[in-house]
């Protein structure tokens, strides 16, 4: 069942005429126990949650997610904690899609096979490694396939025709379209430009296309939900943890509220 969960999520959303809400939080931020509850709260409203694996050198992330990574590592979050957080969310939310997101060195350090086995065992459905482009996915592809983990790849406004083709050939689960040329949480461009790009991709592949990076407001999320299969909200959720001053009762309520609003924004107008 687990291997088709992401597909099921997208088909459910399609039937409900809405985009999937894909929510990101960094595991272990601000500490492991609070992070557990925050992820559970997020999983109430999100269709897919991306659990960030903290890394010492998050090159593709902006200030907000960098700081989250640093808080998580300072709180002692290990890979074992990431897996147990994943398992905990999986137990309470059997229908939510779970994607482990991070940088290649994390799984590489323990070996892709061991990583994939533990990730699948904990209930993850997919993996997104920011610094593994299709050219380098040979080092992990077999391990992920073996354990029925979808490998999600990014496409960006700078991706050429060739690159789009390469990604389509290896991607599974969904394609993560990076809406801007910058790090996570930077300023987003014109919706119409993003829409045009997504439509080009759509002609090329039937894999669901989620759009992310820089989507902060409910309004923007709604605009993008109207033409994509999913909207990824990362920095906007993590900012709530940042602002919470590490006291849980401060973070969980606003997180629930904004996640709920974002979920409503996924609904497309009736045709």
């Amino acid at each position, binding site marked *: 069942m687990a291997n088709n969960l992401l597909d099921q999520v997208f088909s459910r959303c399609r039937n409900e005429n809405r985009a999937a809400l894909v929510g990101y939080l960094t595991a272990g931020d601000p500490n492991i126990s609070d992070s557990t509850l925050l992820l559970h709260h997020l999983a109430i409203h999100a269709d897919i949650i991306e659990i960030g694996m903290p890394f010492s050198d998050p090159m593709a992330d902006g200030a907000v997610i960098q700081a989250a990574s640093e808080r998580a590592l300072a709180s002692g979050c290990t890979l074992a904690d990431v897996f147990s957080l994943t398992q905990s969310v999986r137990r309470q939310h059997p229908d939510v899609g779970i994607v482990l997101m991070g940088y290649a060195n994390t799984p590489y350090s323990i070996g892709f096979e061991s990583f994939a086995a533990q990730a699948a065992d904990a209930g993850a459905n997919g993996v997104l490694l920011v610094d593994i482009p299709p050219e*380098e996915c040979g080092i992990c592809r077999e391990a992920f396939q073996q354990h029925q983990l979808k490998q999600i790849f990014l496409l960006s406004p700078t991706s050429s025709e060739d690159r789009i083709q390469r990604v389509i050939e290896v991607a599974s689960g969904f394609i993560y379209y990076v809406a801007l040329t910058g790090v996570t949480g930077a300023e987003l461009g014109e919706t119409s430009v993003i829409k045009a790009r997504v439509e080009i991709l759509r002609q090329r592949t039937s894999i669901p296309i989620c759009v992310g990076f820089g989507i902060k407001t409910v309004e923007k999320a709604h605009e993008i939900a109207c033409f994509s299969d999913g909207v990824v909200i990362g920095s906007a959720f993590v900012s709530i943890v940042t602002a919470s001053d590490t006291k849980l009762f401060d973070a969980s309520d606003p997180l629930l509220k904004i996640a709920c609003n974002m979920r409503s924004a996924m609904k497309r107008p009736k045709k």
Partner: protein
Amino acid sequence: MKELYDLMITHMPDAGGHFGRFGGKFAAETLMQPLQSLQDAFFTAWQDPAFHAERFDLLEHYVGRATPLYHAKRLSEENHGAQIWLKREDLTHTGAHKINNTIGQGLLAKRMGKKRVIAETGAGQHGVATATVAAMFGMDCDVYMGREDMARQAPNVFRMQLLGANVIPVDGGTATLKDALNEALRDWVASCENTFYIIGTVAGPHPYPLMVRQFHAVIGQEAKAQSLMQAGRLPDIAVACVGGGSNAMGLFHAFRDTSVRLVAVEAAGHGLETGQHAASLAKGRAGILHGNLTYLLENDEGQIKATHSISAGLDYPGVGPELASMHEAGDIELTSASDDQAIAAFQTLTRCEGIIPALESSHALAAGMRLAATMKPEEIVMINLSGRGDKDINTVMNILEKED
């Protein structure tokens, strides 16, 4: 001068930039297209005689190449054993080998029509070399530098500012070279349209390790010809310090496939056993960082460790992928020098020869002298004196004052 240089590219990585199992292009999707454009521009330029004509003209008349190969006779006598010869990269314009690379990449930036260059810097030498070239070509220049390094290398910060560059302090992570590199990558992701990222060492995603090696290969090519001319033969050993490895690859490349032993000297900091060092090859293991698979200093879960070296230029938790590959293949010999040994070598060379070496190069000196002492007087140890020590005067002064 041009006849010294060999433009044939030997020891090519595979098409994806892999040196054996190392190297590659482990970069975010947004950077893949700019990296491809850079790769295309580099190979096209390398085939173009006009590119090399301009490059060699600048290397000769602006940088001051060829740099001398100097037989340090007094040092050799004091040290006993083999003859010590120094490749004087400290005599280049801006005082370190780094400018060989920034001239090359600066010319590429110009050919690609980029109006802005960015760089990361540790000791500040690469930052200064980038700012210098940007000033000469009339380009905007932003240099990322860890806040800790800015304090250690204050004179270089001021030099970059004088040259018109904007030095941006980096507070993330350990606030040193690796974090400056992260920040420069983040800038480039957003700015690649009009910006050229001049990486300062033989690391990063393909084509940087290859390209930077090719731009520095002039060091070894000159040294090889000079050694034949002045000493009548090749050295027995070529020694260079290794942080990322640019001066080492620059020296070593021409001596591959010869009988010359290549010795890489890593920074042992307070001692390899203390954990406070920057010896990625000796104490690290394979991992993925900054766009390439290479040896890294990291914990069991792949979190990059804070490193320590008295020399900011060696204070990096990784190493160029080609050096990692050469290390595993047994093509280089590995040794290290501690902070204390580097300081001692710094003083010895200064007093014996009237040459003040950079603290980075002092590591190569310390190890080179140690090796030479065990060898015969007719044997030759060639040491890459990669930079001059003016920038390190304050650091050394503070240490020597503490000892008094």
